[in-house]
């Protein structure tokens, strides 16, 4: 349970030309669960390593519970970390790998044994305890790496993509365990993941990083529904939000825009009044796949919904849903359909667009228009 403050963290690797972290400022409350997301190579692991004290930061300072630990030894920070690359000790068995951090801290032998047993059970690696890491599968190695961290009771946990190599089923179970752990111990956690569901369900707050800069910091709901910029909007959610260029028109008292299907069918959608300033201009409409669906009776007739016929270009059944690609205003747009609702690629289908959650961007600009 510790408060973690990152103040203007900058980091340039020794032989690199570019700065990797360009001034990251985050205050993480005691007991908070922070998730870092960002594109591959944006500096997440670097930030984690810096927090742990494994990389020296070039500038800025790191405070744990108000104490400046920027130059403290890793072992004096009381942090446990799961490495993206696992970094298991090759000469030790799984058991020894997990017990190592405890032994170092002079925990009595029986307690260590009990702790190892507990963690092994939780991670379902009990039969593997006496193997060497080289005799494990990838996912098993990753679980041992988790085990090494979970066996300890540090002030701060750092998890760097700890579940990436696990199967979906196990991942859900692990996620639940982590959540439970967090609730029980209230330890502060910083967690990197590429799994949207993980991010959405685990996080108290999500930090979106890109190119070493913090783009947005907020609750999962905020990030998902009110992304601060186009990049965040497109990054979060899978398949990604689609951006449809459209012209703001005024028809009578209401603002509206026309959406043109690939077959040149036109339909009009109402726009919020706050966009009045953009009348006659082109803006981009950001809409998520789950808001373009087959007509839903319970939504029909709501103010923000409209329907139209669009030709389905590609369908991708994912199991619970079918993802489809349509074309609106010459832009590819993803939509999410019910598998029961048969649509055929190449054929037009009646779709419903729900703009209640849509967001808007000025053409060519990053920032979102507040509506």
């Amino acid at each position, binding site marked *: 349970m510790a408060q973690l403050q990152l103040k203007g963290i900058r980091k340039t*690797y020794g032989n690199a030309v570019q700065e990797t972290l360009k001034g990251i400022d985050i205050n993480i409350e005691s007991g908070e669960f922070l998730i870092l997301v960002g594109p591959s190579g944006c500096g997440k692991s670097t930030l984690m390593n810096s927090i742990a004290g494994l*990389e020296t930061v070039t500038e800025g300072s790191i405070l744990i519970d108000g104490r400046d630990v920027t130059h403290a*030894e890793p072992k004096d920070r009381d942090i446990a970390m799961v490495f993206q690359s696992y970094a298991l000790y090759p000469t030790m068995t799984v058991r020894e790998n997990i017990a190592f951090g405890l032994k170092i801290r002079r925990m009595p032998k029986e307690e260590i044994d009990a702790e190892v047993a507990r963690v092994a059970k939780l991670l379902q690696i009990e039969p593997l305890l006496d193997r060497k890491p080289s005799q494990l599968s990838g996912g098993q190695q990753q679980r041992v790496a988790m085990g090494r961290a979970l066996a300890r009771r540090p002030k701060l946990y750092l998890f760097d993509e700890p579940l990436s190599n696990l199967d979906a089923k196990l991942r859900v179970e692990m996620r639940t365990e982590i959540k439970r752990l967090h609730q029980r111990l209230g330890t502060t956690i910083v967690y990197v993941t590429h799994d949207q569901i993980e991010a959405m369900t685990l996080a108290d707050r999500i930090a979106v990083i890109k190119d070493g800069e913090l783009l947005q910091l907020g609750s999962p709901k905020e990030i998902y529904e009110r992304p601060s910029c186009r990049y965040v909007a497109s990054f979060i959610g899978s398949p990604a939000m689609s951006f449809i260029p459209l012209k703001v028109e005024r028809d009578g008292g209401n603002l509206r825009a026309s959406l043109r299907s690939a077959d040149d069918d036109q339909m009009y959608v109402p726009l919020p009044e706050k966009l009045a300033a953009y009348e006659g201009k082109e803006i981009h409409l950001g809409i998520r796949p789950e808001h373009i669906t087959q007509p839903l009776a319970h939504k029909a007739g709501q103010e923000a919904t409209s329907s139209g016929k669009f030709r389905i270009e590609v369908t991708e059944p994912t199991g619970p849903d079918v993802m489809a690609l349509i074309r609106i205003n010459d832009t590819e747009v993803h939509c999410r359909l019910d598998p029961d609702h048969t649509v055929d690629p190449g054929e037009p289908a009646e779709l419903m667009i729900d703009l209640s959650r849509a967001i808007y961007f000025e053409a060519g600009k990053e920032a979102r228009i507040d509506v």
Partner: protein
Amino acid sequence: MAHSGVVSETTSQPARGRLTQRLQQWLPKLALAPTAAMALVGIYGFMFWTGVLSFTGSTFLPSYEFVGFDQYVRLFGNARWLTACTNLAIFGFLFIFCCLAIGCFLAILLDQRIRNEGVIRTIYLYPLALSMIVTGTVWQWILNPSLGLEKLMHDWGWTSFQFDWLTNPNMVIYTIVIAAVWQASGFVMALFLAGLRGIDPAIINAARVDGASLPRIYLRIVLPSMRPVFFSSVMVLAHIAIKSFDLVMAMTSGGPGYASDLPAMFMYSFTFTRGQMGLGAASSIMMLAMLLAILVPYLYSELRGQRNG
């Protein structure tokens, strides 16, 4: 610069408060301290002392009347010194090259999950167990035309066989190469083998799937990652090359004439038997200077290369 090390600068920030923490930070340097002290005295102190001597007219034992560069002038006027240097160049190059090639080759072969690897490895390694004096004696027998190989061939009926390198002033240095390679290549093999055993098999697997044949895998994947081993080997071999004093002594005593003389022998005999310590010191300083000229660029490139390796 040192960021691939786990810790970078610890010097910049004063340790906060506690003594133990400061101790932790100094521990790595503390660990090096004994060696640093030994090197400072045992290598650089003594080297400096030798340097000083080379500017004196020391004869029998050190004396400190300075004579400027006289000893160096004399040194380069000495035909034997020039022979010794040429010999070292030939010997050093051939010796290092052959040892690396043979050692590396044998290590690779031995790495192919060979039955009885232990026995074979020991056989390759054992020549190192013999002192150079013994090696020299045995090879002197073998290469001696009237005792060894040539006589053997004649006894076995191949009477036209001739192998008189040992007594041929132009070839004698190569016989020393043969003996030295015989002795040291096994150790290079061991060094390489230890290196090979540290390589991640996954990388080799990747190369196999990439379609590389075994020789190719070794050439392109394994050997490049053995750069540090090459580095160690070259250092060890250069060291042996410079130290082959005993070997030459036992095989040829520098002869015929002084055709197989090496700088170390030159230095030794001038310093200790001929009472020209100043000249001897000058020759050792020159030896070091020559080494420096070759070594420094190599060290530089190696140490740089390994940082991001």
